[in-house]
């Protein structure tokens, strides 16, 4: 028995991948340009190891995030190494891409770059899948897989976890800070693991294989996953309408069946586990046997249930008040008229742009993105793909971020967000042009799977775009707000706002006036290929990402 959780990322990847050859190894010293400006230490690999090797006789690409360095969080270089590896995979066509994920999500020291990078990793993962190459996540590190990487994990074909690992969106400490100890007691370790740990994710279907904390078990599971995903019996590894409609109905059922539960053990009991309190004490193999024996609900899930209408959509409260801000914006965007309605902070409808009907999907009143509203957006996207081929889609973004609730984490909010991202990607691959407009607020996780999944994202000048506010960033980085603002003059990574995101390529342009004309040309110029890294380099807002991607693509590997 060789513990996975105790090993470093470099030890893990060498133990799992035979004949592993590293791309951009530490001696090449591709380090973060931002951390020294904040007086923080760098790492020679920026916390992620990428390369090529063999797994179970298959040629694979692999990446391993080091949880010890900055919690495995994604910064500009770190993210670009992952994107570069995915892009190289599309060209070189390995049998699979294996991602040994361990990450707190976006690196707050270089938050703007990290946020854009995570969305780029999502799109790069989809591109790999579209090329027919499966992406498999191994999640067994002590830092877990959180935030944007929690979403990325669920954008892949399979997630392999140990019980000790965690998979979620917001960390328990963040939720407790935002909504109090009665919402989520982050010191209650048992509750944390019941809510985010491997066994719960396996029972919920957010993790496909659960293994013991052992390198050999992870390796065997990864090989089994590759064989299952590439074998003769395997379905397509790319996204498809039928599959996503099935996921949509499953996720709606999950909320209907478990949305009233307050504690993961209640869910396990509803799933058919006779003695849920004993689950925590079982080792991985005993747990798997028990689940196979008792999980009646899983059988029911095999029957394709009709997609349920969201109950909230039924009691739609149509607000015709012209004072409502989104209506003012819509009036400017769509002089030829629109049918957009608001229901519980969810916007949907159609509009005419230059005589062509488009779908409009969005949120309003800074609503936090919880499981329901993520699913409602996904449903609207799927409906457009199914019923209106090639109809362009406009995403109207206004969110304060992901909803910080224990319930959302228990239900697997990262999976709901990943599902929305997949639906938008399916729309893109099906020929729909997708434009996003941040007309009010776009914060952190709520932004990744809405605006940042579009072909191009635009913003109004007064929009708020950020991962976190300057005071919070100052506390975390121990650099004063004044200094951060000063640094941001030369480096847009350090301060919030549309213009900084524009310099980095995350926002295509800021629309000053004549929104209707700008929208029309945005659809005309929409490009299904993710160009943000190149744009960020051209505009001088991201100096490293393009260089890293180029280096990953060009490094000779035997």
């Amino acid at each position, binding site marked *: 028995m060789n513990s996975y959780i105790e090993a470093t990322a470099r030890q893990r990847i060498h133990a799992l991948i035979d004949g592993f050859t590293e791309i951009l*190894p530490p001696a090449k010293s591709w380090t973060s340009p931002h951390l020294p400006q904040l007086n923080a230490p*760098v790492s020679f690999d920026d916390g992620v190891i990428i390369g090529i090797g063999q797994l179970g006789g298959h040629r694979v690409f692999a990446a391993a995030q080091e949880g010890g360095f900055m919690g495995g969080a994604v910064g500009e270089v770190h993210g670009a190494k992952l994107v570069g590896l995915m892009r190289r995979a599309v060209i070189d066509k390995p049998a699979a891409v294996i991602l040994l994920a361990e990450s707190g999500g976006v690196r707050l020291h270089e938050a703007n770059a990290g946020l854009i990078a995570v969305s780029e990793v999502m799109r790069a993962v989809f591109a790999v899948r579209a090329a027919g190459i499966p992406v498999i996540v191994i999640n067994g590190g002590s830092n877990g897989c959180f935030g944007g990487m929690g979403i990325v994990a669920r954008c892949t074909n399979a997630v392999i976890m140990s019980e000790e690992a965690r998979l979620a969106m917001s960390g328990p400490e963040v939720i407790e800070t935002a909504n109090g100890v009665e919402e989520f007691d982050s010191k209650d370790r048992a509750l944390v693991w019941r809510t985010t740990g491997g066994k719960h994710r396996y029972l919920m279907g957010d993790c496909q294989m659960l293994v013991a904390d052992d390198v050999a078990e992870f390796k065997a599971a990864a090989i089994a996953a590759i064989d299952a995903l590439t074998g003769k019996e395997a379905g397509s590894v790319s996204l498809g309408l039928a599959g996503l409609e099935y996921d949509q109905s499953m996720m709606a059922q999950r909320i209907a069946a478990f949305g009233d539960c307050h504690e993961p053990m209640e869910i396990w009991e509803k799933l058919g586990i006779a003695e849920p309190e004993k689950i925590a004490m079982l080792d991985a193999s005993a747990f798997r046997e028990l689940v196979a024996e008792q999980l009646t609900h899983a059988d029911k899930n095999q029957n394709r249930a009709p997609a349920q209408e969201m109950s909230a959509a039924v009691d739609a409260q149509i607000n015709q008040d012209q004072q409502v801000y989104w209506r003012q914006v819509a009036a400017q965007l769509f002089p030829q008229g629109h049918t957009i309605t608001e229901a519980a902070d969810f916007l949907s409808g159609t509009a005419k742009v230059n005589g062509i009907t488009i779908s409009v999907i969005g949120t309003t009143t800074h609503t936090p993105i919880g499981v329901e509203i993520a699913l409602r957006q996904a449903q609207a996207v799927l409906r457009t793909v199914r019923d209106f081929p090639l109809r362009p889609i406009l995403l109207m973004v206004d969110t304060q971020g992901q909803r910080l609730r224990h319930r959302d984490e228990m239900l697997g909010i990262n999976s709901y967000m990943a599902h929305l991202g997949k639906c938008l990607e399916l729309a893109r691959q099906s020929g729909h042009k997708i434009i996003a407009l941040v007309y009010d607020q776009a914060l952190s996780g709520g932004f990744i799977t809405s605006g940042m999944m579009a072909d191009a994202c635009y913003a109004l000048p007064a929009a708020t775009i950020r991962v976190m506010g300057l005071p919070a960033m100052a506390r975390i980085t121990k650099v004063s707000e004044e200094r951060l603002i000063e640094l941001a003059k030369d480096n847009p990574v350090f301060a919030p706002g549309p213009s900084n995101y524009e310099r980095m390529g995350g926002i295509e342009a800021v629309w000053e006036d004549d929104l209707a004309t700008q929208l029309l040309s945005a659809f005309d110029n929409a490009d299904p290929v993710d160009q943000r890294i190149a744009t960020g380099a051209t505009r001088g807002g991201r100096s490293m990402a393009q260089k890293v991607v180029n280096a990953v693509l060009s490094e000779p590997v035997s």
Partner: protein
Amino acid sequence: METLVFRFENGTRQLPRNPQLVGVVSSGNLEVLVNHADLQSACEIEINTAAIGFATIWEAVMKDFNARWQLANVRIAINDMGATPAVVSLRLDQAIEASLEATT
């Protein structure tokens, strides 16, 4: 952050040319990157540390390290996040041992 550079002349032990990395830049830990470099038989060590004001302790630890190994034509780069002297010595020795093992 503080950057410290130490150079020890007239080393005798050569290392293989392949670079070697051990350790992780995590709290109380450090990473050590060992590289071959043509330094006229010297060993050069550059340290980037998050803990400011410990130059004399670093110097003592590096002198001990040099006395143990007497490296020639080796450049060592360290990213440190507040490791104790014992951990620093341990990682340095691990790096050199790993480098020597890689040849056999």
